C-alpha cells in the first residue's frame, strides 16, 4: 500500500497512464487494425474516404467513450455500496441493482418499443431504485442490522426474480430476442455518441456528488453512534449516496447492459493500492474501473475472431476468482 504523498501521486499518475494506454489500444485493436499514425490522422485530419478513419470515427470512438463512462460509473457505484453496507461483497451486480434496471429496460423495449438509451435510462433508474429498495429491506435481520450473507442472498434472490420476469417477456416477444440478447450479456459496442450525450449531465452530477462526499464517506466506516456524535447526519448522507448509486448503476445499465463484477473487483484493487481514504480511493476506483473495462472490451474483440465475446462475460470470468477468494476469507461470517 502506498502511504506517502509522493508515492500516492506517482501511483495516481501511473494509473492515469494505464488508462491512456487502454484508451489508445481500445481505439487501435480490433477486426480492422489501425496504426497509431492513422489514429492521430483520423482525429486531426479526418478523411471520410478512408476505411480506417471511418471505423475510428463512427464505431471505435463511441465504443471507447461508452466503456470509459460505464467502467468508471460501475466502479464508483461498487465502492460506494461497499462503504454504505460495510460489506466487501457488495456491488451493483451481486446485489441485484443491475438486474432490476435490466428488467425495467426489457419492459420498456418490448412493451413500449423504446430504443434509445436516453429513453431507456428512466426505466433503468426505476428498476435500479426498486431493486435497491427490495434488497435493503430483505437484507436486514431483525435486531442485528444488515448482515453480509443475508444481503448477498437477498440480492441474488431479487436478481433471480427480475431475470425470470425478463426471460418470460423475451420468450413472449421472440422477435426482439436476438437484438436484446447481446445487450443482456453486457456490451459496449454499437452505441451512438449522440445517444449517450443526453445521459452525461446527470451522470457527471452524480460523480461530482460522490467526490464531494468523500469526507463523510470516510466517517461512515465508523460505528453509527460515533458518527452521530461527530455531528454527521447519517440518514441524509446514506440517502444521498443511495441516490448516487442508483443514478450511476442505472446509467451504466441503460448504456451497456449487464456488466457484472467491475463494481466488485475495482474498489478492492484501489483500496489495496491507495488505502481506505475515500479522497484517494474513490477517484482512483473510477480510473481503474474505466481502464479495466476498456482492457476487457479490447481483449473480448480479439479472443475468438471474427466473433466477439460479450464484455460482461469477460468481466464475470475475471471477477469470479476474486469473489471466491473474498468469500472464503470473509471475517465474521457466522
Amino acid at each position, binding site marked *: 500500500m502506498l502511504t506517502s504523498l509522493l508515492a500516492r501521486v506517482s501511483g495516481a499518475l501511473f494509473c492515469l497512464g494505464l488508462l491512456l494506454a487502454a484508451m489508445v489500444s481500445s481505439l487501435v485493436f480490433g477486426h480492422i487494425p489501425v496504426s497509431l499514425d492513422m489514429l492521430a490522422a483520423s482525429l486531426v485530419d479526418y478523411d471520410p474516404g478512408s476505411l480506417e478513419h471511418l471505423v475510428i470515427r463512427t464505431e471505435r470512438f463511441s465504443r471507447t467513450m461508452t466503456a470509459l463512462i460505464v467502467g468508471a460509473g460501475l466502479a464508483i457505484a461498487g465502492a460506494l455500496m461497499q462503504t454504505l453496507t460495510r460489506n466487501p461483497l457488495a456491488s451493483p451486480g451481486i446485489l441485484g441493482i443491475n438486474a432490476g434496471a435490466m428488467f425495467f429496460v426489457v419492459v420498456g423495449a418490448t412493451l413500449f418499443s423504446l430504443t434509445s438509451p436516453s429513453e431507456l435510462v428512466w426505466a433503468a433508474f426505476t428498476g435500479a431504485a426498486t431493486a435497491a429498495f427490495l434488497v435493503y429491506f430483505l437484507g436486514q435481520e431483525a435486531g442485528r442490522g444488515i448482515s453480509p450473507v443475508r444481503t448477498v*442472498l437477498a440480492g441474488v434472490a431479487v436478481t433471480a426474480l427480475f431475470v*425470470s420476469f425478463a426471460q418470460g417477456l423475451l420468450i413472449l416477444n421472440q422477435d426482439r430476442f436476438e437484438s436484446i440478447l447481446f445487450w443482456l450479456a453486457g456490451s459496449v459496442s454499437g452505441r451512438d455518441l449522440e445517444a449517450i450525450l443526453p445521459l452525461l449531465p446527470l451522470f457527471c452530477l452524480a460523480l461530482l456528488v460522490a467526490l464531494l462526499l468523500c469526507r463523510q464517506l470516510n466517517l461512515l466506516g465508523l460505528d453509527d453512534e460515533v458518527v452521530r456524535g461527530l455531528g454527521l447526519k447519517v440518514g441524509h448522507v446514506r440517502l444521498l449516496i443511495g441516490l448516487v448509486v442508483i443514478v450511476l448503476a442505472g446509467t451504466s445499465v441503460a448504456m451497456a447492459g449487464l456488466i457484472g463484477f467491475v463494481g466488485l473487483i475495482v474498489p478492492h484493487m484501489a483500496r489495496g493500492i491507495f488505502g481506505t481514504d475515500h479522497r484517494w480511493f474513490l477517484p482512483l476506483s473510477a480510473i481503474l474501473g474505466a481502464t479495466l473495462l476498456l482492457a476487457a472490451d479490447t481483449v473480448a474483440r480479439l479472443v475468438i475472431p471474427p466473433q466477439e465475446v460479450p464484455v460482461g462475460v469477460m468481466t464475470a470470468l475475471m471477477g469470479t476468482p476474486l469473489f471466491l477468494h473474498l468469500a*472464503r476469507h470473509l471475517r465474521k461470517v457466522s
Partner: protein
Amino acid sequence: MTRSLVLRSPKDRWSVKLNVRVLVVTLALAVLLAVSSLLALASGSHPTSFMEVLGTLVAPGQSELSLIILEIRLPRIIMAILVGGALGSAGLILQGLVRNPLASPDVIGITSGASAAAVLFLWLGGVAGTSLLLAPVAMGGAFAVALCITALAWHRGISPARLVLVGVGLAAALTAVTTLLLVLSPDSTAMNAYIWLTGSLYASQWHDVTALAPWLVVCWPLALIKLRHLDAQSMGEDMAQGLGSALQSHRLLFLVLAVGLAGSAVAYAGAVGFVGLIAPHMARRLVTSGHTGLLPIAALIGALILLYADWIGRVAFIPRDLPAGIFVAGIGAPFFVYLLYRLRRELG
C-alpha cells in the same frame, strides 16, 4: 400444545409421533392436488369433458381421446407434480442446512451448473426434447458444481455461510459461460436453449417420468428419516453435537439429498426457478413443525405451484404453449413481496 398421535411398535423398537395439524394439512393439499390434476387433465387445446377423462382413466381404450389424455397430458401433469415436489423439498432442505430463509437450489448454483452443462450440450449439437443424453448431462453439471462448491467452501468441515457465498460466486461465473454459449449459438439453437433455461414441461413423455421417479423414490424416504438431524442443527452447532448428531456427515448427506432432488428435477424440466425458494415458506406459514413434518407439505405445495404454472402456460395462450417457468415467477413474485412485508413488520 399441538395435538399429536404416537404410534409404537410392539416392544417399543421404534415409535413415530405424528402432528395432527401436519396430517390434516398434508391430506387437504393432497386432495387439492388430485382435484387440480383431474381438472388440468380435462382442459387443453382439444376440449374434453370431466366425465370423459374419468371414463378414460378407468377404462383406457384405443380412441384418439385416450391417446391425448394418457400419452400427452397425463405424463406432463405427473412430471409437473414430481418436478415441483422435488424442487420444493430441495429448497426446504437447503434453507434448513444454510439456516437462511433466502437459500434455494437456483440461488446457490446447483441450477446454474445444470444449465451451463445443458446449454453446452445443445451448443455442441444436441437437440432439446429429442436427445436422451440432455438430462444426464445436466444432472452431471449439477453434481459437478455441488462438488466444486463443497470443495471450495471446505474448511474443517462445511460452513453453511461460506457454502452460500461460494455458490453465489460460482453461479455468476456459470451464468456468464451460459450467456457466452447463447451468444455464440445460431439464433434457433439460442432460443431453444433459452426456453430450456426458463423451464418447460412441453412434450414430457412416460420415459421421462420413469427416469425421474427413481431419484425421488430414493431421496424422499431418506430425507424423511434423516431430517430430524436438521432440527437438531437448527438449535446451533454445539447443541446438535451435544444431542449426539454427527454434524459434518449429516451436512454432507443433506447437501447430497438437495442436489439429488434439485438436480434430477432440473435435468428433466429445465431450469425452473423460484419453486424451491417459496414452497418452503408457504409450508412454514401453514404449519409449525420440524423439518420432517414440513417436507411433505413443501413438496405438495411445490407440486401445486408447478402444476398450475404449466396449466396456465398450456391453456391460457392457445395455440401457443408457453414454458411453465414464466408463470412460476408470476405466481412466486407476489409471495416474495409478502415475505418482504412480513420481514418489515417484524422489524418495526
